[in-house]
């Protein structure tokens, strides 16, 4: 099993979830209110009241093949608005 970590602006959450659902992932977890900084040195804060909002951190545990299936779509989503995606190994308990 793999673990996929996606971090991107909260406002793109719907698009990413649509991508995940289309690939039929077994599940996913969303943590909102993440803040941070990316390679373009833009600091994202939790300024929800401005409508800008913070980042979302999405974790997906799934098989490699699913990740291969989603790769292009996720890269597309992230290339549009920015964000990062990393894969690591994970074993079910």
């Amino acid at each position, binding site marked *: 099993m793999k673990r996929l970590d996606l971090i991107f*602006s909260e*406002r793109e959450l719907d698009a990413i979830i649509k991508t995940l659902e289309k690939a039929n992932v077994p599940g996913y977890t969303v943590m909102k*209110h993440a803040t941070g900084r990316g390679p373009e040195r*833009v*600091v994202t804060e*939790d*300024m*929800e*009241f*401005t*409508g*800008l909002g*913070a980042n979302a951190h999405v974790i997906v545990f799934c098989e490699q093949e699913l990740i291969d299936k989603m790769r292009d779509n996720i890269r*597309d989503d992230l290339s*549009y*608005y*920015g964000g990062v995606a990393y894969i690591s190994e994970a074993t079910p308990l």
Partner: protein
Amino acid sequence: MEVNPILQNVLAPPVLFFLIGAVSVLFKSDLEIPAPLPKLFSLYLLLAIGFKGGIEIQKSGFSDQVLPTLSAAILMSLLIPLIGFLILRFKFDVFNSAAIAAAYGSISAVTFISAESFLDSQKIAFDGFMVGALALMESPAIIVGLLLVKFAAPKNRPKSRKMHLSAILHESLLNGSVYLLLSSLIVGFLTASSNPSGITKMEPFTGQLFYGAECFFLLDMGIVAAQRLPRLKNAGSFLIGFAIFMPLFNAFIGVFIARFLSLGPGNALLFVVLCASASYLAVPAAMRMTVPEAKSSYYISTTLGLTFPFNIVLGIPIYMSLVNTIIPLSPL
């Protein structure tokens, strides 16, 4: 221009709390209003402004002045982004220019509230229908900004980012803060026309509490603005200059239009403040979604870090002097 009105403005609780917030950042205090509490106050203020505005509009009806004023308001919110865009293009690409220009064409509701508080403390009357102008000036600037991107953007913009008119309208009219203000206005209007007892029952919430909630929100705005200000350094002196020049310029145009419309000093100040203020809610949210090429730090740092504090602390009394100087002149 006397210094008195500026000092008087600064010594009112809302501005004092704003300054307290800003100073706390300067002094590295760990005072913080954690998310999502600021959102609570911003939602509350929009709801209350809209509701009270709707009641006022229903009460005052559509007098002679209403239609011309509202039309002029919309006109200004179409015109300012165009002017701003032309100025900004000297230094910035289409995306950043359009996004920043749109922010200055739109309005800041809290600046508007602060101007109302200022008028109250100066015992100068103004009309409730000016909230209508506030509500109407939020969206057109977004539309202009997005149309500028649509037509002026380099032809090699990726296909996925080509904007459709429907998306433009969606972002400009259904943005959370625009929607809440507009729909609360409608609720206020309907309540006033068909359920007047509802007004009395809402009064403690939307009326009496308002001033205090405004102070609390401005405390947070002071913190946020002061955190944003240093980032302007990276934006360069052109943008810093723009963030001060543009509101003054817009105010100047605004005051002549106000005179042309024969607005009283209260309404004139509010009109001028609408022209001079810049959006840090609806426009940034819309631009973040539709023009990701624009740097959010540019349009947020200028509006929130510089233009907003300038208007709150110095701008409003300056515009008042402007109004008091220009409006009483012999008719155009």
